[in-house]
């Protein structure tokens, strides 16, 4: 949609859009402001809730689940769904206008960005208990030692395979434990006439998201993009492309396109996320899952995906009491499992929740394992520097994959760009 707006508004697009969004922001202003006045102390009233799930409309299970949490707290929840990027912009604009909603579910890399503006309350201020949440997942929302939200569930990446192709080529998925065995498997399946692996190296956040398991799996660190380990990771990808194990389209593939390519049944492997579990089960061929291998064996840390529940600062602090009840309702062990089941692609962020989920659905075992070894993108104290580093990294991946630069050169430039951007 935004693309049309921009075309129409032309060169003024940037401001035009900001302007348009500001207008939307202030219309929300009216409702929130009025509610604030009514529901200051009396029970009841309306609480506003934003989430990035426009695919779940007013009649969905998700909406019912949100409303149930409101009913438990004795209030009505007014839920508004935006798409992921629009949600971040909306949240920023509403904060600018002083009309933030009571609760936002937001993609985890955006938490530190929002927290940096001072628009979010910390978990401690709210008196929420986060001790049971897996630290690796919680970390994505930690800025300067303060947690600014609670993950409502997590997803991550893993390596799907087409069991029929592997069978034909005589590859045992269990043999794939490190980079060398994976490359050997790719050689074997392409030798048998199939296509090897597909992934996303697109020039957006998705590209970085997909590259990180290999980047981290080599032992590289986001604070040093041009380390020898990082170069090895990029050379691995580039090598697959040069050998014809990966199609040239990976340079422009979004994660969705990757999945579509995999569903054609031509590819032996595809790097993709928890959210495709159902689709994989319905595929016309038998699929399986191996953990993304680290360079020298073991499971590579994949980046965590998934939304955090955050509570923006309100002028009327009397609202916090009910907001806390709503947040708690979403973050009990039962609440986590229910969310996981509603979405079918969320792994609960607590040990207890994961156990409960596995009891109901033992097939998700590999995903629970993947989530446990996953790592937040904004962790390691990167916080708001992450988006800048990420942009440098995906540009390097693009330049190296397309042959505009060698992996080493591309990463050297990336490191210089990242340093310039974050200093």
């Amino acid at each position: 949609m935004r693309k049309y707006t921009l075309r129409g508004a032309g060169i003024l697009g940037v401001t035009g859009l900001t302007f348009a969004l500001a207008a939307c922001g202030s219309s929300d202003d009216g409702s929130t402001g009025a509610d604030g006045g009514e529901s200051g102390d009396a029970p009841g009233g309306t609480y506003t809730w934003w989430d990035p799930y426009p695919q779940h409309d007013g009649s969905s299970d998700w909406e019912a689940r949100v409303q149930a949490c409101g009913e438990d707290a004795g209030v009505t929840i007014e839920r508004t769904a935006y798409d992921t990027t629009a949600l971040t912009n909306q949240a920023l604009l509403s904060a600018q206008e002083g009309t933030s909603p009571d609760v936002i579910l937001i993609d985890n890399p955006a938490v530190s960005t929002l927290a940096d503006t001072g628009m979010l309350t910390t978990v401690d201020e709210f008196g929420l208990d986060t001790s049971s949440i897996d630290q690796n997942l919680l970390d994505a929302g930690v800025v300067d030692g303060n947690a600014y939200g609670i993950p409502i569930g997590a997803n991550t990446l893993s390596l799907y395979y087409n069991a029929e192709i592997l069978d034909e080529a005589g590859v045992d998925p269990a043999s794939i434990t490190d980079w060398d065995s994976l490359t050997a498997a790719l050689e074997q399946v392409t030798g048998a006439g199939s296509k090897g692996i597909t992934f996303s190296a697109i020039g957006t956040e998705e590209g970085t998201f997909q590259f990180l398991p290999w980047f981290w799996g080599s032992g590289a660190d986001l604070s040093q993009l041009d380390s020898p380990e990082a170069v090895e990771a990029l050379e691995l990808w580039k090598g697959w492309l040069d050998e014809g194990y990966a199609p040239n389209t990976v340079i422009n593939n979004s994660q969705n396109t990757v999945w579509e390519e995999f569903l054609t049944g031509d590819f032996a492997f595809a790097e993709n996320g928890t959210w495709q579990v159902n689709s994989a089960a319905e595929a016309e061929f038998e699929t399986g899952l191996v953990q993304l291998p680290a360079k020298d064996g073991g499971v590579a840390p994949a980046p965590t995906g998934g939304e955090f529940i955050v509570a923006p600062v309100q002028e009327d602090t009397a609202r916090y009491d009910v907001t806390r009840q709503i947040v708690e309702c979403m973050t009990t062990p039962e609440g986590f499992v229910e969310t996981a089941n509603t979405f079918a692609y969320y792994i609960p962020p607590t040990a207890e929740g994961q156990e409960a989920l596995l009891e109901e659905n033992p097939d998700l075992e590999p995903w629970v394992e993947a989530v446990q070894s996953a790592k937040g993108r904004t962790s390691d104290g990167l916080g708001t520097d992450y988006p800048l580093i990420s942009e440098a990294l995906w540009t390097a991946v693009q330049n190296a994959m397309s042959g505009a630069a060698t992996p080493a050169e591309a990463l050297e430039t990336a490191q210089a760009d990242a340093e310039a951007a974050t200093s």
Partner: protein
Amino acid sequence: MTSTPADVGTRGESRGAAGTEPAAPSAPRRRRTLSSSQWAAVGFAAPLLVYLVLFYAYPLMRNIDLSVHDYTIRAFVQGNAEFVGLQNYVDVFSSSTFPTALWNTAVFTFGSIAFQFTLGLALAVFFKSSFRLSTTLRAMFLVPWLLPLIVSASTWAWMLNSENGIVNSVITAFGGEQINWLTDPDTALLSVTIANIWLGIPFNLVILYSGLQNIPGDVYEAASLDGAGAWRQFWSITFPLLRPVSAITILLGLIYTLKVVDVIWVMTTGGPGDSSTTLAIWSYREAFGTGQPDFSPAAAVGNLLIVIALVFGFLHLRLQHRQEATS
């Protein structure tokens, strides 16, 4: 800033309503009639003025305001952006992306316009001689205009796909080598330019075709009596007489093409690397393409585009002026 248009609006409207009455009385008090009819004029102009201020002047001001402050996200929310003067412009000009983006913008814009105009003109001349099905065919050439851009851009991206695209399957069927249209830094810009040419042909066709309708038929008749062939007629009649229409078509095309974001964004997101990044794409990417909106440099690049478009606009006005002076 907002108080001025509001004043103009209310004052203008109240006087405007009254202003219609005294228009009827007779001539003697000439001065007063004149001034009240002036007020009426202001009243009628007021809605337009308010509109212009709200939707043109304000965004423009805001864009300039954004570009001379350092709007980090924090500053955006708290409204305390630091004034940095021209620092954002300095950063833009010294960025390694700038020369690439400027060059790409030039190639993309002039490449698109040259082909759009030539093909549009050729088709317009072709359709001028009515023949059976000419209306239907002409209507079909408008299809690129009717399709939502996201659809046509996705279709082009799909056709130019390295592995599964129809273009490559034709090339390989005839023994050629697979071309990585969108993923090779050498061809990415060419690919998006081709798609944009296709999109722009209908616009050129329609305007030039209507321009052709205004060339009197007897000129051609006289020329053919003098023995001028089709080629000679084109260069000696059509082309010179079409010059004013051509100039405006090219100018509009230039402005439309300078700011194209959607086609390129959908097809390559400006990549691989920066190889198909134009100034407009760069601006969009800074503002919305990353996890961290950077409104200030985005606005600076946007302003730069406005200036470029303005320069060409003035150039056009000057040329037109000279043309009118000589004729």
